[in-house]
């Protein structure tokens, strides 16, 4: 019987055995042909130039709604840069998201002017009404909350945006009313959820 070593080395047992099985390292990208073509078109419109990565990411996110790993892999492949580089850029900039935003993404401006005029209270009210935190999306995918660093509408402080619509001089009491505009039955501007 082999006595167990007191200083057993747990890490060495953790890793999976190396494998030459070619399939296990492949990235399986599940996207429809249309989506893949769209991404390829966007990259080609910028001549697949790696310098244009940020413009490519903007346009891709505008088209597909968000930038999951598979999309980033395709962009990396087209622009001939590493996926790690693309991921490093996506995670650096606040604009880019790897998770879908809600149908009606809500942004509260947290710039100084808005802060001084009570933006924090609006944020608290939103969190209470929707029961989610900043950066999260409601389970029914209707709303998501994020903070914006100053949209430059300081004259209307405090400012809240729902999608592209700007609401100015918002008070905590207004929050519920504004959200009502976007509830299922009331909503005129509802778009179907962007799904890949």
């Amino acid at each position, binding site marked *: 019987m082999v006595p167990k070593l007191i200083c057993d080395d747990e890490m060495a047992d953790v890793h999976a055995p190396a494998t030459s099985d070619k399939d296990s390292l492949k990235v399986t990208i599940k996207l429809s042909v249309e989506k893949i073509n769209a991404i390829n078109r966007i990259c080609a419109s910028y001549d697949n130039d790696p310098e244009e990565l940020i413009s490519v990411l903007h346009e891709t996110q505008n088209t597909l709604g968000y930038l999951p790993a598979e999309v980033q892999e395709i962009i990396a492949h087209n622009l001939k840069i590493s996926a790690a580089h693309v991921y490093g850029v996506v995670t*650096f900039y606040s604009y880019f998201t790897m998770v879908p935003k809600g149908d009606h993404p809500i942004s509260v401006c947290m710039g100084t002017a808005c802060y001084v005029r009570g933006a924090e209270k609006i944020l608290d009210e939103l969190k209470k009404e929707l029961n989610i935190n900043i950066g999260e999306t409601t389970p029914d995918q209707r709303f998501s909350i994020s903070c914006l660093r100053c949209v430059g509408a300081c004259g209307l402080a405090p400012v809240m945006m729902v999608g592209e619509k700007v609401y100015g001089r918002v008070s905590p009491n207004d929050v519920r009313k504004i959200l009502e505009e976007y509830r299922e039955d009331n909503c005129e501007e509802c778009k179907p959820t962007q799904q890949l």
Partner: protein
Amino acid sequence: METPVNKPKQLRIALRNCGMLDPENIAESIVRDAYQALGKVLKEYSPQECINILKQSGLRGRGGAGFPTGLKWEIASKSKSDQKYVVCNADEGDPGAFMDRSILEGDPHSVLEAMAICGYCIGADKGLIYIRAEYPLAIKRLKIAISQAMEWGLLGKNILGSGFNFEIKLCYGAGAFVCGEETALIHSMEGKRGEPTNKPPFPATSGFMKKPTNVNNVETFANIAPIILKGPEWFSSIGTKNSKGTKVFALAGKINHVGLIEVPMGTSLREIIYEIGGGIKENKKFKAVQTGGPSGGCLTEKHLDTPIDYENLIAAGSMMGSGGMIVMDENDCMVSVAKFYLDFIVGESCGKCTPCRIGNKRLYEILERITQGKGVMKDLDKLKNLSYIIKDTALCGLGQTSPNPVFSTLENFYDEYYEHVVEKKCRAGHCKNLFHYVINEELCVGCAACKRCCPVHAITGEKRKPHYIDSNICIRCNECIEKCSFDAISIQLEPKILV
């Protein structure tokens, strides 16, 4: 959104056309002299002559640091290279600042024209505008303006038959305040993370794609054409000895007239706040005005008569910055203001250098403790020492100026810090843990409405007897005050009951 034009103290140079024309119709801009200066320069001046005009005018960068523009162009023009670039920094990330947005939306041609003039002076045929993605209208109008200018032969090849070529492209920011720093901006345009690099080398020697690059702010560019057309002497006759011309400020916060103003350098803070700005909202007491955004500091009552210019602001412990002016009143807690700015910086720090990545986080943590009522006197020394070291060792302008709000509030509002730390008091009534909800025994009838609505059961009391709120449990949600029909609950700085 601009303040009424008839206020006599204002002098509009950068904002001369905003609100006066349809920015989507180039003809209207041309009627108001757009591209006249470009034509004049191409026809009458050599690049060096034009640079000399700028140097004579005394124009300094309006993005924040105030470097002499003519000198900047001259350095770039002297760098030898087969390719050079002109870059317009339209990343306007300072919260509370919207000057550049207004110029880009209201008078895009002023910027395009100035970039072309700059290209001529330094020997560049390519211009790039780095504009933040949060400005979709400005982006739209710039695209229209560029395409119309190209149609009219005012941009592109052989401008006005002079043989000079200049084309402009848009690059987009993606939500990173640090990309307002010129080296970070350049790396962002190269498709990388917006991390600054050490200077020297300066962009004028090695910038975009390692080529000589001149980076200027939107407002700086907006001043170029008038200087060419009206002459440098006219420009240098406005302002103070070392700060010529005008500055656009964005008034925000607790002031009656919120919006953009443009005043000659040297105008006093009092004039700006009371005469042009209409005074403090709801007639509250003026406390401070934050200038320079998160890189600046606050000016107080004692600075009200200081003429505003680059040097005076620095001497007062602040800086011009991009021109944001946030007015604060007696209900603003200055410790929280410092904390707010540090929170912003912590979220926007790129993370490259140690002092900013970790140092600012520690500064924020100390301020958070203080506002939570957990501060100790040693914390105030720590704040000062760490702030000094961050300022002394950070890699870029963001880190080097990030402790300014701390320095400034410590210097001007030390009493408030002291109160937070020693007396556990927040005189502005802002820091939740430092004020208390108190029931006035005289007014309380014991109806228990407050007790029923309190979400954390902080209120105790028997029926028809005065109730009591335990401040240690209370979360300051304000429900009780809203429910009390007898005005018996008020917010006090001390947990004692007020008689």
